[in-house]
């Protein structure tokens, strides 16, 4: 798989760029380098959630043969999204401790990511409570779509309407993008690396689901 090799080259490159090439953030110093890990992981966690919601919509409304195993793919995306959301919360807390002195401040963006984490936890609780029920895939798909319709509302609108401790006032005091060129490029490289990592892990999980299904069909 070609994506495999791009990832294995790009990720170490973006790690080196983040620590050795990008300049430190003005007010935060070297601690600001966490931006190159926290922001991409946050983006991937929300994107994974939206993708699992979209796959759920396809699962419920599309009855063709072109997209097989949509329910399993949606579940795999949710699993990865959960992992990335946990990483976002951890890296965000560490950064909050360094920048603002306490691990958790209920800043609107922090609140939005906690709501996303709770949605994932609720999804997995529902998934396990439904067990091997025939309607499990359908009901969990409905829950994801329901959550997907509401969570971006809080993730996008609330942080824009209410003021935030998040670094926009520090990095962008006049609401323009104020990252230096090197930082922009490093952030872009890091974001693409994490996207590729998610993509790669997602494809591995999908292949495993297909294998499981084939083996299950053979046993039957």
């Amino acid at each position, binding site marked *: 798989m070609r994506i495999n090799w791009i990832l294995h080259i790009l990720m170490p490159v973006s790690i080196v760029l983040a620590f050795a090439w990008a300049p430190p953030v003005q007010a935060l110093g070297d601690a600001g380098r966490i931006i190159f890990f926290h922001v991409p992981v946050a983006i991937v966690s929300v994107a994974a959630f939206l993708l699992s919601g979209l796959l759920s919509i396809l699962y419920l409304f599309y009855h063709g043969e072109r997209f097989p195993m949509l329910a399993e793919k949606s579940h795999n995306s949710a699993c990865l999204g959960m992992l990335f959301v946990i990483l976002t919360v951890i890296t965000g807390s560490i950064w909050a401790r360094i920048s603002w002195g306490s691990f958790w401040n209920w800043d609107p963006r922090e609140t939005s990511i906690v709501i996303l984490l709770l949605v994932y936890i609720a999804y997995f609780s529902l998934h396990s409570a439904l067990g091997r029920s025939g309607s499990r895939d359908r009901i969990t798909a409905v829950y994801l779509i*329901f959550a997907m319709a509401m969570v971006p509302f809080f993730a996008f609108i609330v942080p824009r309407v209410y003021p935030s401790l998040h670094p926009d006032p520090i990095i962008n005091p006049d609401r323009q993008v104020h990252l230096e060129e090197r930082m922009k490029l490093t952030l872009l490289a890091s974001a693409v690396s994490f996207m590729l990592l998610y993509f790669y892990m997602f494809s591995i999980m999908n292949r495993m689901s297909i294998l499981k299904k084939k083996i299950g069909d053979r046993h039957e």
Partner: protein
Amino acid sequence: MILQRRLSVKGGSALGSELVRNIIKDVRVEFRSRSALGVALVFAAVTTLAVSMVSGGVPFEPKVQAILLWLIMYFSAMNGLAHGFTREADQGTELFLRIHSDPDAVYLSKLIFNISLFMLVQCVVTPVFAVLMQVDVKDTVHLVLTVAAGGLATASAVTLLAAMVAKAGGRGPLFTVISLPLVLPVLWVSITATGRAISGTAAQGSRDLLFLLAFSGMVIAISFILFRFVWLDE
């Protein structure tokens, strides 16, 4: 099968008459035992009494009073609002309802039932809370509107989730767990707006009310579309 709708010679009035019939049935069954309403009210009363007793009659800040009020209402709702669907599953009437009624009518009747139930709980809990916790309400109209809007938003959000929980066996804290992330923003806004109504600083109150009403509308619309996927078996 899922996307087919039952055609009626009379068109839309069939949905209306089914809706009314289901609501009357739910109300009659509920008032035979009053279990959902009773559990919710008893829970609210006990919690309010306990908090009032422990506080020793000293009034809290408006913000704290708003938080306590909404926590009591939310958890008493969690005891009662899933009942609409779980009772159908327990009594074995679910299959009959599925065959007999259009999913849209079932959803709307359960929604109206849940909203009414929650509003009734709020009508009882809010004055009792205000009296026992010595709440000095500066803007009563705004408080009533906020509590009503918050109740509408909460009840709308949990109706579809109650149907899911009924399918999953409906036991234990599953309902609370799956509804918490989706109701948390509603609680956040409701608590803030209620705190402002109590302290009389409701300058931005209309924005919060608008948010709650918009949220209710969106949730009802999405639940209406998705309900048949939960309710009907393929």
